[in-house]
């Protein structure tokens, strides 16, 4: 079996759970890729600044994704999606926490379409809010990405990465958030 080669950029704002998302993704893909490299940002940027995490699964040696190489851009914030769009590979996935693509200018939307990007927009904050866990928007978005086919792993593998070994109440809450995301992906 050939090993998985997959690169992702997770972008957002301090406090949204960017680091949690990249760790969950890496735990989920690690068995398939064999080797994992992540680069995350700590310290000053965590206080409301832009936070971006690069994830490389497979036979890579450097921790940062080159522009034009990311198979997935998972954005917890529309503005940060724009800032990191140049990392997408042609035909790559953009999964973004937004009701639609209106946050992009018409010019940017056209550029994205001509790049063959596959797009999944999810109003994750609203959905998480409805479930009474506003801070769980990141898990909703992950659920949508898995169900929408943007990840190299199945929903079950993702769920195991997030919920296994967690206290029961937290695991249950996360399962619910993942399901909400999956439902949203089905509707798009």
């Amino acid at each position, binding site marked *: 079996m050939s090993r998985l080669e997959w690169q992702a950029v997770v972008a957002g704002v301090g406090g949204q759970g960017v680091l949690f998302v990249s760790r969950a993704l890496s735990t989920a893909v690690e068995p398939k890729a064999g080797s994992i490299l992540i*680069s995350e940002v700590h*310290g000053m940027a965590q206080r409301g600044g832009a936070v971006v995490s690069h994830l490389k699964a497979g036979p890579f040696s450097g*921790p940062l994704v080159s522009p*034009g190489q990311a198979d997935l851009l998972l954005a917890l914030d529309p503005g940060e999606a724009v800032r990191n769009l140049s990392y997408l590979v042609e035909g790559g996935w953009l999964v973004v926490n937004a009701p639609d693509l209106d946050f992009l200018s018409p010019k940017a939307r056209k550029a994205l379409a001509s790049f063959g990007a596959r797009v999944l927009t999810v109003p994750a904050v609203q959905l998480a809010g409805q479930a009474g866990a506003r801070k769980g928007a990141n898990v909703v978005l992950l659920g949508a990405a898995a169900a929408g086919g943007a990840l190299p792993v199945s929903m079950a593998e993702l769920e195991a990465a997030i919920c296994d070994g967690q206290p029961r109440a937290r695991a249950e809450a996360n399962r619910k958030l993942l399901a909400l995301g999956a439902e949203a992906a089905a509707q798009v």
Partner: protein
Amino acid sequence: MGSKNKVRKEILMGNQALGRGLVENGVAVMTAYPGTPSSEILPSVVQYGAEMQSQPYCEWSVNEKVAVEVALSAAYTGQRSAVAMKMVGLNVALDPVMSSAYIGVIGGMILISADDPGPHSSQTEQDSRLLAHFAKLPVLDPDSPAMARDLVGPAFALSERFQIPVMIRPTLRVCHGRQNLNLRTPKELERVPGFPRDPFRWAAIPKMRLALHHALNAKLAKIQDYLSKSKSLNQWHAPLRPRAPLGILASGVSAALARDLLAEMGLPVGEGKVPFLQTAAPYPLPIGPVSELIAGCRNVLVLEETEPVLELLAPNRDKLWGRGSGHVPSAGELTPEVLGGVLERALGEAKLKAARPKGKVLSVPDQPPMRRPNLCPGCSHRAVFYSLRRALPTGVYPSDIGCYTLGMNQGAVDTCHDMGAAVTFASALSRGLNQADKDTPVVATIGDSTFFHSGITGLVNAVYNGHRFVLVILDNETTSMTGMQPTPESGLTADGHPGNAVDIKKLVEGCGVRWITELDPYQMGDLQKTLKKAWRWCKGPEGSVAVIIARHACAAQRPRDAVASPCKVEVKGQAAPVKTSFRPQDNPCADCGRCVAVCPAGALTRTGKGKIKVDEAKCTGCRLCAEVCPTGTMVLEPAGACVACGLCSTWFACPALAKDAEGYISIDRGWCVDCGLCAEVCAHGAIAPLEESK
């Protein structure tokens, strides 16, 4: 033994990997002062050390100099020790570090100095490898979390073989990278600490130091030979080929990224078109393999961060392409974006065609504005900075390194230089600015951990020399910016055990300060009165340094404690802006200038004694002038609703105060923690509690 030997695979952060490596190699004493990107190393030694019978002794030292001295003397007793810091901390520690190479160690000692190319959260981009060279200490340069862990063993071995401390220099992408690795069994070294008395070595007089310097130089020549012969520290990713037009000499994260980039450009290092030597030992330079590479290639591209260390130490420098030749930029992180361009240019000049061009890159117009880091919602520092500008608006505000540096967003931080400089800068600024009897309040702000680190010495100096300024110690009882490490005041040690708490107030008293007040900055009215009172005392005949200890729990660490009187606030509807008028005919102007000083819009100017000009175009109707006017000369009609004056969003700068296109404010419930502070800030009473606080 069985279960102990089972291979455990985990995804570890670089700092955890370093901590793991130290425990796997029998570290007995570990010290550190927190600083991004190094802060997680010591907690990892605490965590993994629990797997050992004799758990290593770990301490958060009050600063890096202390941390180095404790680790160094532990290594004198034959134990293995380590010390971790960020690179600007290395400057603080440089005094003992410089001597450490001369005197040496018995047990292995590792000095970890984490660099921050970029710089993402630091004052400089300095390269610790240059300081290792300066201090004549061997330094190792890992390219990944796994390599960082794997270098700990060889570093201890090198240190003990040659009786010299060894530096490991990870960069941010190593420290805060994550990688999966197999955990090895922690090693228990059965060493009984002892101190071989030898004053001619441990307390060497200058004459002895000269002899030691000669011995050190001889030792370094042997180390260089040892490093040259090491196959594991010098990896040929692609072997030398006869008459190669271009070779690559690289170290650290740049080496790792270059390997990926060459693959993306269709020239994978495995195919061997470009000879590629990666050395993990930049100093003393492994001269054997490096000379071989340079002799065998027409040109050699040198990739390293941040300064040209390999490049300056390498022989035959006219063949090198790097910072000296302009091929590599001399500031900033070597990200794939930058390094890609460097490689493309070098391959082009060497007439090596990349087999296929790099993939297409989407260029996106209309980039969003940069996001500024911000103090957390509910943070009591915000109340201090707001009060500072209200109480002493004409002041100069030196500040320091930590969360409070973000007071810049509120216009209440004028200087930020290095740990402790708030106090020393305030000394000279107050002296200079007030020499000609001018009345410029100087108010310094510093956090509790930074005060313990190097604020105290500045305070002793200020008291002794009779400087006059207000020092506000922003005491949130933790080291917040780097991730909530305990301070001496908390009395909690690095492994969570109780130590002895050190009282800041008594310490300040002990420094000889005669004017001290402790208060809760959430009481913004009191704070403003106290600030004014403190400054009046400072400039009075008996005045000197006045200290205000503003104490409130960190909003990120203990959110519930941080919020004193939880109340939901709302913004009342929008009203037409009310303009200011200046009516000396009703009440004579006292000519105090306060209105001019506080006006956030800069709409007021003095045009002569007792005369103020109001620029109607600039006035936002914020009412601040009327509020501070002692005689009632400045007049404003009451508004009772948001007039988009911007006072709260600029001077208070809470991320929960959302501003629409016209500047009107609403509360963003995603950020708001219901601390209720902003209700005190609004000069119109437009932001008000929804209900009385419980």
